[in-house]
């Protein structure tokens, strides 16, 4: 087999693998988003408008990610975190721009769901810290959605 055919075969195999794997990777973040939206559902009845936009990615056990978000005084916000990994434990917390915990005490963590509630005292940037506390998977997909009223 000459070098050209070899390269062609390798490239096409790699491309096929990418095409086959990509929807699976995307589907997992989408699944995580579905769970985050599921956590948000009861709050819609309480008048919260849930944004279509969301953050997502994957984290290893014990890893954290910070999301920066502009919040407005006068509004009330809930952030909902979800993952499709059943036995994972996730958490979400909210800090102000000085790094001080800014959330209300009614946030919750229930296995692969977590939520945090904030009524901003000032308008400005806040940091939402998402974390995969435990997971049977090497990498755990997560998605964070938020709502306001």
């Amino acid at each position, binding site marked *: 087999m000459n070098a050209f055919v070899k390269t062609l075969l390798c490239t096409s195999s790699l491309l096929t693998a990418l095409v086959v794997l990509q929807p699976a990777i995307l589907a997992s973040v989408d699944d995580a988003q579905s769970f985050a939206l599921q956590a948000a559902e009861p709050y819609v009845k309480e008048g919260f*408008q849930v*944004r*279509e*936009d*969301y*953050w997502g*990615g994957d984290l290893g056990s014990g890893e*954290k*990610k*910070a*999301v*920066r*978000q*502009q919040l*407005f*005084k*006068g*509004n009330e916000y809930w952030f909902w975190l979800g993952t499709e990994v059943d036995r994972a434990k996730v*958490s979400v*917390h909210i*800090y102000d*721009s*000085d*790094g*001080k*915990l800014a959330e209300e*005490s009614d*946030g919750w*963590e229930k296995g692969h769901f977590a939520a945090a509630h904030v009524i901003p005292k*000032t*308008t*400005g*940037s806040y*940091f939402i*810290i998402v974390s995969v506390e435990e997971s049977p998977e090497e990498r755990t997909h997560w998605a964070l959605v*938020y709502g*306001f*009223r």
Partner: protein
Amino acid sequence: MIPFTKYLKLTAVALIGLTLCAQGARTPQHIDIKQLSKTVEDVVVPLPNEIFGALNKLGAVNWKEHVRSDKGTNFTERPRIALLLGTVIADGFVAVQAEDAAAVKEIGQRVLALAKGIGVGNSITPHAKAIIEAADKRNWEAVRQELDRTQNSVQQAMNEVHDEKLSQLVSLGGWLRGTEVLTSVVTKHFSTDGAELLHQPDLLSYFQTRLEAMPEFKLPIIREIEDALVQVKPLIDVGNARIPQESVRKINEITTRLGYGIVTRD
């Protein structure tokens, strides 16, 4: 003797309390923000109605006077269409606040035409239809939701074809129009709480960084926005100080000028 159900309730309350305490104890009360710099994700740009909602709580706003009937020019340059699209979606949120069904329907059609102009019409058609139907029924909550979906679908469709920069221009157009309306309302009925809603320095820096990465868009309006953001930055980046009425007025002048530039041909 404590009845069994009461005992059960007390145990449940105690357990919940203990869980909350344990959770509270685990959560650090303070974190070092500087250490987060490498793990911080990009900001999600707030929708205009998020700001309008906060503004509404400060007192009644006459939203009708902020509804815009100017449909804007038909551009062929994609960055210009993207900016205008963001602005028109923001106009949709204003029209919802004003509960102006005719304006909302017109905006629904305009959004569709602009999305087609930028090559993402297919993903917007169902949303435009839903906006018009919901406006007919005066279901404002549904219109709001569809406007959010519209912006999200437009941006997703752009990102899928690696037009992220255009997607960012949609957000920028919306933010500028939202800021124009916000400053107009606060200029007329000044309050420190209203002015505080302008305290968005990180968001402004985010847009500045994005614009700097668009040297290929050699359009006067893009450079005009870039220069204007430099002027606005010190007016809103005031730390813990209050934003004075004069600053609000200046920002309104700047954003009104940009708004006119976005809808009008150079």
